[in-house]
Each structure stands twice: as C-alpha cells, then as structure tokens.
C-alpha cells in the first residue's frame, strides 16, 4: 500500500453512474438506483452519480442528501431570521421558529412532489469545490489528508485538467483497514 497511488483505488468514470445536464430529478434518481443495483455484488455501493456536460466533462455530483435537499421546499425565512437576529431574538427562539415555518410546508404531498420531479439536475447538483480534486499519481496518504481536511466522501481524480475517476472514501477505508488488520496480534 505504501507505494499505491490514487489511480489504483479509484473507480474510472466509465464505470460510474452518470447523467447529463438537463436531466430531470426523477430520471436522475432512476439512474442512481440502477447504478446501485448493478453494484450489489460490491460491498460498497455507489452513493452518488456524476453530472456530465455535453463534452463529457464532470461538472457536478449528486448524492442522496442532495436529492433530499432538492425535494425540501424552499423556505423563504432566511431574511426573517436575519432580521430577528438583528433585533436581539435568541437562537432558541429562531430555532423554534424555523421548525414552525418548516412544519407549515409539508414535503411529502403529491402536488409538491410533481413539481419537484421536473427539477433539473443542475439546480441541485453539487459543483466540485476547491480541495476536492486529487491527481491520479498522488499517494493515498495525500488523498486521506484531503478527505479528512475537507470532510469529502469522495475525491475527483484528475489527469492533467480532465476528471478521469472517483476515489471513494469507502474504497480508501477498506484498503487502509486491510493493512491495519495485518498487524492485529
């Protein structure tokens, strides 16, 4: 493992679940489900799908949390909270008010879900952030540092400017755990 590099553990883009820009939320969820079914043999399923632009470049990522966030109504209370804070209302009061406002807009309503299903992936995908990239020839050490420091579930593996794969935390963890077990006396 000492001599392993990122490319030894990454999943190549070609094997990863992808959708293109403009895909609706419903289709994206289907793609995510299919990708997970295809990998049932694996201990660690795909937790995210990648979003590609027309040139096949990775422009975003969608995980289960992103999907849940997308179906949550857009609460229009941020300005209210800001104002209340300005006028010395306590955190306790603000938190109570947030819950109240949220409870007034239920998520799992047919009408609401119909609207949500038409959302496009670009509206809720997570765009790659600085610190989320790692070059294919980097050491696993470097990748671990990046994951821990940035709290990333996965890193985008690059060759020059292009993203060529995903390094998942699950794969890194499995490899590291395997090494540690060798020393278990």
């Amino acid at each position, binding site marked *: 493992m000492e001599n392993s590099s990122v490319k030894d553990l990454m999943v190549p883009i070609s094997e990863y679940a992808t959708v293109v820009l403009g895909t609706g939320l419903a289709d994206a969820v289907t793609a995510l489900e299919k990708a997970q079914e295809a990998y049932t043999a694996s201990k660690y399923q795909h937790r995210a799908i990648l979003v590609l632009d027309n040139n096949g470049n990775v422009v975003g990522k969608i995980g289960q949390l992103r999907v849940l966030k997308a179906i949550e109504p857009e609460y229009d209370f941020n300005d209210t909270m800001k104002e*209340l804070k300005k006028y*010395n*209302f*306590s955190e306790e*009061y603000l938190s*109570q008010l947030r819950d109240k406002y949220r409870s007034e807009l239920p998520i799992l309503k047919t009408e609401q879900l119909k609207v949500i299903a038409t959302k496009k992936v670009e509206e809720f995908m997570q765009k790659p952030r600085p610190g989320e990239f790692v070059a294919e020839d980097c050491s696993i050490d470097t990748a671990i540092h990046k994951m821990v420091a940035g709290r990333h579930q996965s890193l985008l593996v690059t060759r020059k400017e292009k993203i060529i794969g995903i390094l998942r935390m699950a794969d890194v963890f499995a490899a590291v755990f395997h090494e540690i077990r060798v020393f278990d006396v």
Partner: protein
Amino acid sequence: MRELEKLYSRIVQRVNINLRELDFDVTPFAGELIPPDQMTKFYAFYGITPDHPLDLHFNHSALAGSYFLGKCRIKNSLLYKSDIRGDELKRKDQVFNHGDFEIPLTTDEVIAIDDSVLVKTLVHNFSHDPETAEKFFIKNTLAMDYSNIHGAPSDGCFLGPFATVDLTTMRDCAIGCYSYVQAGEINHLRTAPGTIWVNSPGNFNFLYSYPTEALAHYVSFSPENVPWGILFDFIEARKDAFQRVFDFVNLDAIESVPDTASLDRFAVVLPKTKIEDNVLVAQRAYLENSTLGKGANAQENCFIINSHLEGLNVTAHGAKIIDANLESGVFVGFNSFLYGKPESKLNIGKGSIIMPHTIIDIDKQLEIPADHLVWGLVRNNKELAENSIPLEQLVNIETSFTRGRMHFEGQGRMFVKAFQDRIHHILDVNGAFYENGKNEGHAQRNQNLSLNTIQPFHFGEMEGMYPDIRIQP
C-alpha cells in the same frame, strides 16, 4: 451662499459622515426638506413659568415656528416647527436611578441640540442615559416630519417621517419612517420602515414589521419625492386651522375649560368639544367635536375628532383618534392612527392598550374588547384577531409567542407591567389624578405659563437665522 444654506449643507454632511458605515446618504431626503423662504415666515416662541427653571441659549441657529420650554441650548442647528419641551428634565440634587446606580445630579439637566436639523419634531422627556444624566444631547442628527425624540439622546442619526425613538440612546442609526424603537441603547442600526421594536434585555422583546406595500399607503417617502400618504394628507387637510392660532398673539380664552384642566394656547379646539376636569391639551393638539373625560390628555401633534374619551385616556404624541369611542383608561401610543368613520365607529373597551404606531383603518364598525393589547395594521376583525391579545393571556406567556408578523420573546407579565406602569406615570405627571390640591401635574401647572416670541433676521446674509440670544430669569 447665505448663512442658512451653508449651515444646512454642513449639518447634512455631518449626518452623512456618521451614517457612512450604514451606507445611508441623507442628501436626497434633505434636499426639499425645508424651503429656505419658510425659515423667515414663522416666529419662534418660548414659555415662561414659575414651575420650570429657565435657561434658553440660541447660538448660530434657525428656529422657525419652534417652541422652547425649560433649559435648552441650541447651537449650529436648524429647527422648523419643532417642540423642544424641557418640562420633564431632571433637576439639580435629584437622584436618577438606573439599574443599580443611584446618580445624584450636580446641575439641572439641559436639552443640548448641536449641528442638527429637526423638522416638525417633538423633543420631550429626559435623558435615560446614565452616562449623560445631566445632558439630553441631540447632535449631528436629521429628524424628519412628525418624528419624536422622546427621552432619547441622539448622535449621528437620521429619523424618517413619523419615526419615534423612545427612552433609548442612539448612535449612528437610521430609523425608517413610521418606525418605533424603545430599546435602551442602539448603535449602527438601520430599521426598515414600519418596524415596531420594544426591547428590554432579559425581560421581553417585541417586534412587529408592517407589510411594506400596505404601510406605503399611509406613510411613504423616497429621495425623489416629498413624503406622502394618508397620514400626510390627513394633517395637510387641517393645516389652516392651526394658522389662526399661530397668527394671533392674543386669542380669546375658550370658555368652559375647568380650572383643573389646561388647554394650550397653541391647540386648535373646534365645536363642539367638551373638556372635563384634569384634562391636559398640549400645543399643536387638534380637537374637534369630541369629549375628553376627566383626566384624559391630548399630547402634542395629536388629533381627536368626532370621538368620545371617557376619562384617564392617554393620547400620546402624534396619535390620531377619529370617529372612535374610548372607554376609561384606554392608552393610544405615539403616532397611532385610529381611523374610524362616521358610519363605522371604532369602539375600544376599558383598559386596552393600543401600541405606539398602530394603524386601525376600518370601513365597518369594530369592537376592541376591554383589556387587550393591539398592534400593527388592523383593518377588519380578521386583522384584529391576528394583531391583538387579551392582557390576561399575555401575562401568562413565559417564553415566547408568534402571531402573524409579530414576534414576542420573554415574560408577558413584565411587558404588560412596563406598559401599565408607564401609563400610570404619564397620567400622574399630567395631573390626571389631581384632587383637592393634591397630585398636581402639567394640567394644573401649565396654567401658569406665558409665552414670548422671537424673530429671525428678515434680510441680508443672515436671513432666516436668529440672533444669538440667552434668556434667563
């Protein structure tokens, strides 16, 4: 450039320097605020009374149509039709209690206005700031039409039309039009129009925000226009009635005012108005076809029309009551606008509290039950339900409650007590409880008041400015 214009520009710059952090520029609002020819049109005047120490000091200022009482020092300022009422200032040797501090006063308190423009503004009460117990300061401040600076020292602030800052020291703040703030101390705060905020840290916190569009119907102002809206139209329509009381030096005394009541010589009283014992009618109050029962008061800039006030009613500075019946002890706060109609009266039950800056505008008769707290915009029963609470229910609030656009946190009991104590105090100082020579207040003492006038330069470089004058006993 004439001296008046130079002074005005300098003050506007000073206010802007103070408000630069808020990115608030008063220049567009200040442009049309006071037409220079108005500054020579009106005399200034002051009251002389054996009950209040007299020391007025005017220095390099313009004072058109403004009134002064007590100890006031005005320097490098421009005052237009403003009331600077120093009849509640603290006195030498008095002990001012603030929290755990007992502060003995080494001199009489003075209202000190420096480098400020006040337009139709009321300055009253006393400094509640323990750091400046002997000086109620207002400096580098621009206050627009019908604003109230009530016990609120101010440094580097802007107050929009009909804004009130009450018992609060403010520094570098911009208070939006029709906002009411009572919060002890505020710094670098900018409030949106129609923000009603009453905060006593550790005790309670009340906040209501007017819906922007609805409020604009009543009070509006923008850089491009002079302020407008129903409240301005309402006052403008009655402007001529005030002309007569300011045009004549001596007016015939109005009969049938009891000996225990006081009717200011600069108030407008039109038929058929009835004033009972212990009533106080302040200057620039407007009464028409109304009854003020025993111990009621009508403070500066208030209007009471076609209404019946049963007694012990407080109509605070700038409040307007039209086509309404108020049972005993009803309090109507600063700048409230209770707009009943002849065919749809507003009836308010005993002991109810109408919060400062409340607008009740109805086309159908509306009943506010006894002992209720009412706030915000009320145009029908639905809005009344959303913007009111029985006091009995409010005193049981221990943590918080939210209703409509109103937020409350803290102890309801403390909030109600603070209001009721203050209402009692106002009635007391106004002489509402006077009986057989005891509990004398403004209503009885103001009878011993006479007035003098002072005039500005009418020609030359100093046109509109007043000569430096010191008036002492």
